[in-house]
């Protein structure tokens, strides 16, 4: 029973990690930028989801609105922060991204205060028994929602002209442009989808812990970076698998080696061990 519970816990966290890390890997695969500010968008999504839910009383309305709004902010970040420095070496964009992330945290602190906000009436907190385990509805929503969203995205990328255009642009932007694909539109779309995914993950975690705070993006940002490295940089399938693996490893680790390491330390220890054996990541090519 403990095994099942830990596995379910790992699956829930793994799905959440996948939702945030896939957005990050989308940006990396297209622009080769480590978009650290993605975690700031994750926190923004958490804030907007909470504020909109409190204002409207409807999570169903708040979630897509928050995702769309953060998607637009992501596009603005590309336009005003990254596009002007794309011709510079990659570390310039990385520095800009870290600066932006810190700035976003401070903006949240200034606007919403240094302490966390909570839902007026946290939705999806009802519990029920399933296979001998006690599960909250929000946990089911996280797993089903992540699988649905990522599954739909995967289907769209393979079965629509726009999806094929996106994958072609990731493969060879110059050739893609020469066949009439607007690389600029693909980049905007990429930032919109990636940022919207971060927002969804932010709303999920705010529901799970009934809390949003200015620094909530900190740990997920490091973990998402660890995940995309583990998955093989730019590899979406690898990112999904690494997310689930990390979630499950953390869940089991907190029980069996939790006396020596906390949950976050386990994640990084796991990454270090894997990278010592496979420096290219679990699913990356040499």
């Amino acid at each position: 029973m403990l095994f099942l519970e830990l596995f379910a816990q790992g699956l829930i966290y793994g799905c959440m990690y996948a939702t945030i890390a896939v957005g990050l890997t989308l940006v990396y695969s297209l622009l080769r930028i480590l978009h650290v500010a993605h975690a700031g968008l994750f926190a923004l999504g958490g804030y907007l989801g909470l504020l909109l839910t409190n204002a409207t009383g409807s999570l169903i309305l708040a979630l897509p609105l928050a995702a769309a709004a953060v998607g637009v902010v992501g596009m603005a970040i590309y336009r005003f922060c990254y596009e002007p420095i794309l011709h510079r070496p990659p570390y310039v964009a990385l520095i800009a991204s870290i600066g932006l992330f810190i700035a976003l945290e401070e903006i949240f602190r200034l606007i919403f205060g240094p302490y966390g906000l909570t839902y007026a009436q946290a939705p999806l907190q009802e519990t029920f028994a399933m296979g001998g385990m006690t599960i909250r509805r929000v946990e089911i929503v996280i797993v089903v929602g992540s699988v649905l969203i990522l599954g739909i995205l995967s289907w769209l990328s393979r079965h629509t002209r726009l999806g094929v255009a996106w994958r072609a642009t990731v493969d060879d932007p110059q050739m893609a442009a020469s066949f009439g694909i607007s690389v600029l539109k693909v980049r905007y779309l990429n930032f919109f989808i990636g940022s919207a995914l971060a927002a969804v993950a932010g709303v999920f975690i705010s529901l799970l812990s009934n809390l949003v705070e200015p620094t909530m993006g900190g740990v997920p940002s490091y973990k998402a970076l660890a995940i995309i490295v583990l998955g093989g940089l730019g590899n979406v399938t690898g990112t999904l698998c690494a997310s689930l693996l990390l979630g499950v490893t953390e869940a089991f680790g907190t029980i069996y080696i939790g006396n020596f390491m906390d949950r976050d330390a386990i994640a990084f220890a796991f990454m270090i061990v894997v990278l010592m054996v496979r420096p290219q990541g679990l699913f990356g090519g040499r």
Partner: protein
Amino acid sequence: MLRIDALSCGYGDMRAVHDLDLSVARGEVHALLGANGAGKSSTLMCVAGHVEIHAGGIHYKGVDVSSASPMARVKAGIGLVPEGRRLFSDLSVKENLIVGGYCRKKTATAAGIEEVVAIFPRLGERLRQRAGSLSGGEQQMLAIGRALLSQPELLLIDELSLGLMPKVIDSCYQVLSDLKSRGMTIVLVEQSTRRALAIADRITVLESGRCVWRGTPIEAEASQEMIEAFLGLARGDGQGGLSDGDRRIE
């Protein structure tokens, strides 16, 4: 169809082509020949819009396209089969063809894929296969097919025979002959001189980015100086024909 006036182009400060004039008539196959680094591929990529123009101009169907984007040139009817194929290796054969027809209507793309499959039946058997897993010959077929999907009137082909087996090269050139007979205008960069001379209506020889000879294949064959100096060929069979030895310009 295509007129290049005093074209100089290159990469940053480095000039690959100097003061090149070239004209290609509708329905003509024009071969660009020369040694490695002569500027053949740079000329082709410049016409496709991928290499920066330093001076001069490019006119396509009477319109100055010198400053047009690669996308605009594809829409205008300039198709490219680049050196090394440059397929989207993670995409399937069918998806590569879809990208080829991206600037056309969806219905035109579907019809175009059927046409390409009729030309290259082997691609039809591998529509769902990853392009990166195809053999060299199949990849070249796909590169040609992808360019045809954009419904070009002018097809730019860079190093068609590079790295392919003779039998595969034969079938690729057979396709070019068919396209030629259907009135397609083709500019061909090729190191295999014998094959280029066999299909071309006119040839231009480049050396260090400059035009050093131009004429028809018959004139090239008749010009001993041109053959020895630029094509590296000898009249080996004593009958005035080109030998079957190493025809490559190195």
